């Protein structure tokens, strides 16, 4: 696939990791991947208290490979520190990776010059989490949505206006509202403006970084519906980042679970949420409270991970989840060897030495949690 091998990145244990999910996409015969991350590594330098104020490298993304197929909603879930936001920014090349490649329709983004990169940016857009902070408070809604058209020099003034109003109407805002500034809108409406801004260029891929987390439940539903409708209408591919597993399960076709900068599990929706293989996925899923009767008796069956997420600075050598893993904690192979991302079941990848064991330990099958549904 690539002409030269990416150089070895920190954190791998030396075992050769195939760019597995990329191979998945290719071998499948289905639509080719529109967006790929190939052994992506991103490290920052921070001052560390433990090291007497000297700068230490912090690896936020530790050898991530995945592929997004055209037209799907690809979910990235994980908790704080897992690197999902950093990954999103690397995919758009808002951040330069330390190692590895990002491919858009097979084209390595690093090889593009400025003009080409700019043209590519038209086709990949971003929706931010905080609907207030991501809008310039001094611009009107109309100006905010029009700006991408201006930047890419599309159409003349009248055409841009028309496109802007059309886009605003698509997200449910009126022409009159186009003249108002962000503070005059509610959270949900601001997020719609953000969405309009991202979609006005008719991109092919949209990366959504927690687009609904800051909104009320009822508004979340409205925005999710809107996103769904626009996806069908415009033929979009989504990369949907969320910490809310219920939303990810509802919205995404395939999901990758991240922990401390590594992919723990990657599978189709039903497979991941119905029969998770990785102990982290299991504990994550069982930690999600389900709004159903009989909740308190279910709580006893939780498979709680131990302790808190490890510091990003002190990465464990083997499996990053080992210190907290109900299955692998203390086991030599888990401590010493980083488990490779392997296709343990068809189209279901997990990075674990003992995949599937967590569920028996926990005894908390998802099926149990949804008595009136199938898993």
């Amino acid at each position, binding site marked *: 696939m690539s002409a030269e091998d990416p150089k070895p990145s920190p954190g791998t244990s030396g075992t050769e990791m195939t760019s597995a999910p990329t191979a998945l996409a290719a071998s499948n015969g289905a639509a080719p991947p529109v967006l790929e991350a190939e052994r992506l590594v991103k490290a*920052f330098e921070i001052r560390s208290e433990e090291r007497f104020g000297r700068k230490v490298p912090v690896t936020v993304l530790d050898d991530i490979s995945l592929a997004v197929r055209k037209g799907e909603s690809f979910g990235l879930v994980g908790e*704080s520190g897992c690197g999902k936001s950093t990954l999103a920014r690397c995919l758009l090349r808002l951040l330069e990776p330390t190692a590895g490649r990002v491919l858009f329709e097979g084209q390595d983004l690093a090889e593009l010059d400025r003009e080409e990169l700019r043209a590519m940016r038209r086709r990949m857009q971003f929706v931010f989490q905080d609907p207030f902070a991501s809008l310039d408070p001094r611009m009107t809604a109309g100006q905010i949505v029009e700006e991408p058209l201006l930047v890419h020099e599309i159409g003349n003034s009248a055409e841009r206006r028309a496109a802007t109003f059309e886009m605003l109407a698509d997200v449910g805002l009126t022409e009159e509202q186009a003249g108002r500034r962000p503070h005059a809108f509610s959270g949900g409406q601001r997020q719609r403006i953000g969405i309009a801004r991202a979609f006005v260029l008719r991109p092919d891929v949209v990366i959504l970084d927690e687009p609904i987390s800051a909104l009320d439940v009822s508004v979340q539903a409205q925005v999710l519906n809107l996103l769904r409708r626009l996806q069908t209408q415009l033929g979009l591919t989504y990369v949907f980042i969320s910490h809310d597993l219920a939303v990810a399960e509802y919205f995404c076709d395939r999901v990758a679970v991240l922990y401390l900068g590594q992919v723990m599990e990657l599978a189709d929706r039903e497979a991941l949420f119905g029969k998770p293989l990785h102990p982290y996925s299991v504990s994550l899923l069982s930690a999600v409270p389900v709004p159903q009767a009989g909740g308190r008796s279910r709580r006893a069956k939780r498979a709680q991970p131990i302790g808190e997420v490890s510091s990003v*600075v002190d990465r464990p050598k083997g499996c990053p989840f080992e210190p907290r893993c109900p299955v692998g904690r203390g086991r030599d192979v888990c401590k010493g060897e980083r488990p490779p991302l392997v296709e343990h079941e068809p189209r279901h990848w997990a990075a674990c030495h003992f995949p599937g064991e967590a569920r028996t330990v926990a005894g908390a099958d998802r099926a149990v949690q949804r008595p009136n549904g199938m898993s």
Partner: protein
Amino acid sequence: MGAVIARRIVGSIGAIFGATVLAFIIMRALPGNPARLIVGPLATPHAVASVRHEIGLDKPIFTQYWLYISHFFEGNWGYSYADGKSVSSLIGERLGATIELALFSFAITMLCAVVFALLVTYRRRPIADRILRGVAYLGFGTPPFFVALILLIVFFKSLHWLPGPEGRLGLQANPPPTVTHLYTIDALIAGKFGTFWSSIEHLILPGIALGLSSFSFIVRLLRANLLEISREPFLTVARGKGLRRWTAFRRHALPNAFLPTLTAGGLVLGEFLAGSVLIERVFNWPGIGSLVFDAIVKQDYAVVQTFILLAAVMFVLVNLIVDLLYAVIDPRVRIPVVATA
């Protein structure tokens, strides 16, 4: 913590050296002969030549620079040909006056700003708030010398409550024996309470005039910070523990609100220390502001050059103190925030 302090000190030294380089360059960049500027337009060529030699204009540039800064830090500030005295004695006489006024004004400005800001934010009364903001706008917009004149007219001429524009102690009085150059402290040391009170009296009006616009600035800043902090959850939590309103406010709101004010305070003190010509003129205050102003007019170069450096050093020192205070008060500066998960 030590690393933090060391970094700040090194930074300050760097800033001072930067100032010296800047002053050095400026002097060399001025049209004309620096030596001529120093001795003045009426001096003999012989004097010019001797000064040229003294400041090393005939030597390589780095030697010149070295001479320049080594003289400064040794205290050899040159000779004022216009006034016929060494620069260090000229400035020395005046520095005490400026420092005393600066410190006094700073103290009353900050005290008043704190008190007023607290009054207005502790119990929210819209009227008091509006009055304070009105006063602050007025104070900020009115030029200090104008305020000075008004104060004199009201408190000296009409009411006779305070002394007039007669400098630090008035025309007849004798200054106390010199220890610190600050008349108030020296008077206390010498046990001369009459002189002490007199010097305080003389400090009041110029202190107010000098500080009014800074007071306006600081009080608005502090008020805004206090209001913002009052809305923070940890205040509510503190009250939720059962703490009384003032206790929660005093322990938790004040320290946090002060931090940004500290920086502003440092700037204000630095400004005061650099002297204020207009205030000094109005009150006949023998400070370095008027000295430098006159020196500029007289083209008394040695004085000006020294003053530039002196002001830079004072400013940097004040800010260093502010930085260190910050490190003491705010643990987030001492113990850097590490990227936790």
